[in-house]
């Protein structure tokens, strides 16, 4: 299984540092985005719009046309609609008439999807994967640390069993750990809340059963956990704020990995998910 190319996209409004928001800045200043459910009336972009741009970027990177896609898997933790699926909305925007649906595991979206796809006996020939999370739309800017940590963005990639190009997927693991110290919650009508962040040791304990025995390459980590993982090796995260399921694809779209080098992608979801993807650059 190979990942032929990664893509990323962000809304246009800078939120300071390198983060972006899909909400107008004056709206945030005036209302603090309270109540959350009003955000959709003021937001400039939907998750599907940004997801479409990220997916087109991934296709360009993979040197493929939209028409070559045979299957679409989507993810979002900030849906404007809980039905249809995000995969179907993005595929529809691209004019695709192919099997489309969502595989959702919050921050472990890519590892959960690859966990399945890499274990299939006859995978579809070209899978477009996209995760779009416009998290500032569900932030209460009047309180908490969430407003300083999260951003808006989408990541995408093109997955193929046939074309030996980009990154080879060497190993994927995904599971749940109900004793996880990393807890994020978001009620349907509520703001996103970080309930607990793990220490480096607690996080290592959660990842240890999944990690490869030997690894000395680059580690791709979620921005929100970069500090805890920083002592494990050479760690990199994108700088656009925590983007949940979009994190890994966004970081991998931004970095240059030498041919034949390995990359260890670590993913965590606030619902107890823990994911690991071991990649090797082949071209």
């Amino acid at each position, binding site marked *: 299984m190979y990942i032929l190319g990664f893509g990323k996209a962000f809304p246009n409004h800078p939120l300071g540092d390198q983060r972006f928001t899909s909400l107008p800045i004056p709206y945030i200043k005036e209302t603090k985005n309270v109540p959350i*459910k009003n955000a*959709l009336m003021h937001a400039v972009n939907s998750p599907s719009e940004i997801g479409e741009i990220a997916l087109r970027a991934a296709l360009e990177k993979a040197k493929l046309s939209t028409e070559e896609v045979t299957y*679409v898997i989507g993810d979002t*933790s*900030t*849906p*404007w*609609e*809980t*039905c*249809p*699926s995000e*995969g*179907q*909305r*993005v*595929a*529809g925007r691209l*004019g*695709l*008439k*192919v*099997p*489309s*649906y*969502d*595989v*959702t*595991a*919050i921050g*472990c979206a890519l590892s*959960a999807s690859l*966990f*399945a796809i890499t*274990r*299939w*006996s*006859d*995978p579809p020939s070209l899978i477009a994967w996209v995760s779009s999370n416009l998290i500032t739309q*569900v932030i209460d800017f009047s309180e908490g640390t969430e407003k300083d940590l999260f951003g808006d963005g989408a990541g995408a990639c093109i997955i193929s069993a046939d074309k030996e190009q980009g990154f080879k997927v060497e190993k994927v693991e*995904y*599971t*749940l*750990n*109900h*004793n996880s110290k990393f807890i*994020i*919650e*978001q*009620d*349907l*009508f509520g703001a*996103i809340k970080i309930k607990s962040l793990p220490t480096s040791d607690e996080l290592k304990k959660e990842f240890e059963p999944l990690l490869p025995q030997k690894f000395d390459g680059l580690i791709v980590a979620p921005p929100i956990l970069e500090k805890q993982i920083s002592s494990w090796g050479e760690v990199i995260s994108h700088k656009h704020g925590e983007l949940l399921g979009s994190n890994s694809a966004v970081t991998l779209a931004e970095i240059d990995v030498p041919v034949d080098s390995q990359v260890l992608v670590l993913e965590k*979801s*606030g*619902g*107890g*998910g823990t994911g690991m993807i071991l990649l090797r650059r082949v071209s």
Partner: protein
Amino acid sequence: MTLSILGIGFSHSDIALSNQFLEDLDIGTNAQWIIEKIGIESRVISLPIPYIEKTRNQDPEEGLKVATTTPTELALKATSMACERAGISPSQIGMIICDCVRPNHIIPTEAQRIAKALDLSIPAFEVLTACPVFALHIDFIKRFKELPEYVLAITTSAVSQVVNYNDRSDGAIWGDGASACILSTKHLGKLKIIDSEFDADPTRSNAVVIDRFGWFHQDGRAVRDFSVRQTVRLIKRAEEKFGLDWSKDVFIGHQANATMLEQITTNRKIPEQNHWHNVRCIGNQAGAGAPASLAMRWDDIKPGMRVLTAVVGAGLSWGSVLMEGV
């Protein structure tokens, strides 16, 4: 490697909403119109009747607060029945996939919440497409080269909580329910999977929508035409490929509305006794409708009997599963 269904369970909300009640809301409908156009005699919902009478559920956030059950609770009840029928303990489940078109919580996901409730630290994630999800779940699981000993596939929804009861059609359609299925390639079950397919036309994805902060809405006429045409196409394909005999084989369709199902079974000459359904008394349970109908007739499944489910809906997407009694 044969994929088998070892046990399948169902659960529904327990508040009955009658056609007469909908007529009395004075929203431009009456009991006779509902029977003639939708064919649903009653439905089970999770909103208290006095709440609907008073508010028509104009604020779905309030609806969520007063609801008598949650999608998670429905899913856990269905899972309990599925495990009992499969003769396993929930602790033996090795993977969970779930579909919920309107969860009460976005984080954690419904699958992660269910895994936690069952005290299972295993792979658990959403595989979501709404109404045709039974076909998607079977097609998704069937692709695995190797599976854990037991896999749990759940679809759960409480769509009544996102219905605008000022709308004369939507209020008559929706019921709440869940289904749960224990699957295995390592053990033979009561049903073995013969064939499955799943496909979509996402260019029509805005035809059926549940707004996150709003209500369900759909392009009713277009969706109905699509549903009838696509279901007939799925049945014809199965008839041609597997030589189905409707004098002994069974059909289960998407439980959207009973008159639509009648139109389909008349077209394919499927006799009433071999058409299993629950929509007349439960309402449309989104993705749970077809598998719950199968679960409600679990004891009627005989060796050699083939059961075809053909399901359609949001996405727009569709699919079918052909099973055979073992």
